[in-house]
């Protein structure tokens, strides 16, 4: 518990900055909706006739004119990219920062087992990602109510749940990578998040690349699928969960026996 509290205290500034930034952007998007809606007649046609670009963002299957269609594309991108970045950075730095920042000698010479250290750090990462998602979910509901729209509970919850799962998966995979790193690993975290995002865009554009949706967690976060089908793609989500678990196991395996420099 001491370690979790310590990590949360250490991570509070990035947490506040990322939550405020993503929350702010979500709010701006939602508050833009009433204006967009009134001009939607023309815009919808434009957005749905841009060929593969349209497909890339799933706008061929969604109407920009409905709140959920608009939300899942616009806010989905903000929440997806922003959340993925935060989760990846959170996970990828939490173990490696001790050696990179040379605090490992302080922490690991206290009578705390490596197992406890890994568990404490993982708990802190999951707690921060969960807290951010709860805040963003609540903020979305408040903003939707503020613009006088009915809250589409089911779709909204499913979309947020999907992105939450994505962030947890990325955080866990990056946590596993973190155990192997000694240097600053921010670049790796950012790289993974961006790569996963673009893999999904590619998968959306061509059918031959559809298998990529099983690799990238963005594959099960597609707003178009969730809104039209009313559920998550269980297979893709299961693959994602397995990847996350693998990351966590790798972290325990590696950090438990690693030479600390």
């Amino acid at each position, binding site marked *: 518990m*001491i370690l979790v509290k310590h990590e949360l205290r250490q991570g509070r*500034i990035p947490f506040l900055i990322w939550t405020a930034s993503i929350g702010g952007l979500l709010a701006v998007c939602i508050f833009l909706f009433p204006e967009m809606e009134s001009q939607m007649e023309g815009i919808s046609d434009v957005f749905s006739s841009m060929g593969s670009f349209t497909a890339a963002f799933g706008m061929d299957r969604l109407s920009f004119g409905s709140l959920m269609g608009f939300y899942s594309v616009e806010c989905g991108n903000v929440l997806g990219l922003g959340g993925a970045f935060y989760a990846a950075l959170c996970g990828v730095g939490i173990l490696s920062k001790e050696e990179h920042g040379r605090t490992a*000698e*302080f922490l*690991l010479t*206290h009578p705390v087992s490596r197992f406890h250290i890994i568990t404490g750090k993982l708990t802190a990462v999951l707690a921060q990602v969960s807290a951010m998602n709860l805040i963003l979910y609540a903020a979305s509901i408040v903003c939707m109510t503020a613009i006088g729209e009915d809250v589409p509970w089911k779709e909204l919850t499913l979309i947020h749940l999907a992105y939450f799962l994505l962030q947890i998966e990325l955080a866990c995979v990056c946590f596993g990578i973190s155990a192997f790193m000694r240097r600053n690993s921010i670049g790796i975290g950012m790289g993974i998040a961006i790569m996963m995002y673009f893999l999904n865009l590619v998968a959306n554009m061509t059918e031959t690349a559809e298998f990529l949706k099983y690799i990238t967690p963005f594959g099960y976060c597609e707003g178009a699928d969730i809104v039209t089908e009313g559920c998550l793609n269980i297979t893709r989500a299961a693959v994602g969960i397995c990847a996350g678990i693998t990351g966590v196991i790798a972290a325990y395996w590696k950090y438990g026996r690693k030479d600390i420099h």
Partner: protein
Amino acid sequence: METIKIENLTKYYGKARGIEQVSLTVKAGEFFGFIGPNGAGKSTTIRTLLGLIKPTSGTASVCGLHIDTDRERILGAVGYLPSEAVFYPRMRVKDVLKLSADLRKKDCEDAADGLCERLRLDTSRKVEELSFGNRKKTAIVCALQHEPELLILDEPTSGLDPLMQKEFFDILRERNQLGTTVFMSSHILPEIQRNCTRAAIIREGRIIACDRVEVLAKTNTRRVAVRGSVRLEGLDGIRDRQESDGTVSFLYSGDIKQLLRSLVDGHIEDISISEPDLEEIFSHYYEKEGETR
């Protein structure tokens, strides 16, 4: 009872040598010095004892506990002062001390207050604003506040001014008298000579000598300084010869009679023959090793 027992400990970092076949015993209550130049393997030995790195081969026990299986219990009994203390950013000194105590599940507030007062450490300062010396003091309090039975100190005085060094060694001696075992690595020999009862010398990853400090310092070698003119040619066992202002000074390990004969024949205004200090012996150990290689 043996507080530290190291047997044939070897550590390789890939192909690079860390330590080789290090064996060492430190008894309970000893003030033990671990001497060696940078890169000799002092920190590797210490880090292995603390479970930060795993040995390639060999074993060791600390406070009767095995380093492979009882890591947490060992760390609970040890206070460790790293050579370079680094703390988490944005924390105040008092938060660091509290975190350290909390990680040990102990309330060390009174002990910490006493130590901070003696070391003149302002606990309200942020750690990133601290000078190297003040960071060191923070680390000293972290190592001592829980009153461990073994203190492992890696280059403890670097960064401390002479007044603080004195206070620090006063504290260490008090603790030692109360029964705390002290294991201190250093390359500053007078520090070892003044404070330690026994010492080991490590060189290129191997222990080359381990004994009581007086014994280590005791050799047939003498430091001879002669003012005047004297013929030293033909004398065996002269090293480290230095000449300045009509004074010649050298380390002599040869036959004393021969030396005296040479001196009698010379014109001597003044002479001193003394035991060399540990520093000279230290280089002597090194040279001896070098010669035999």
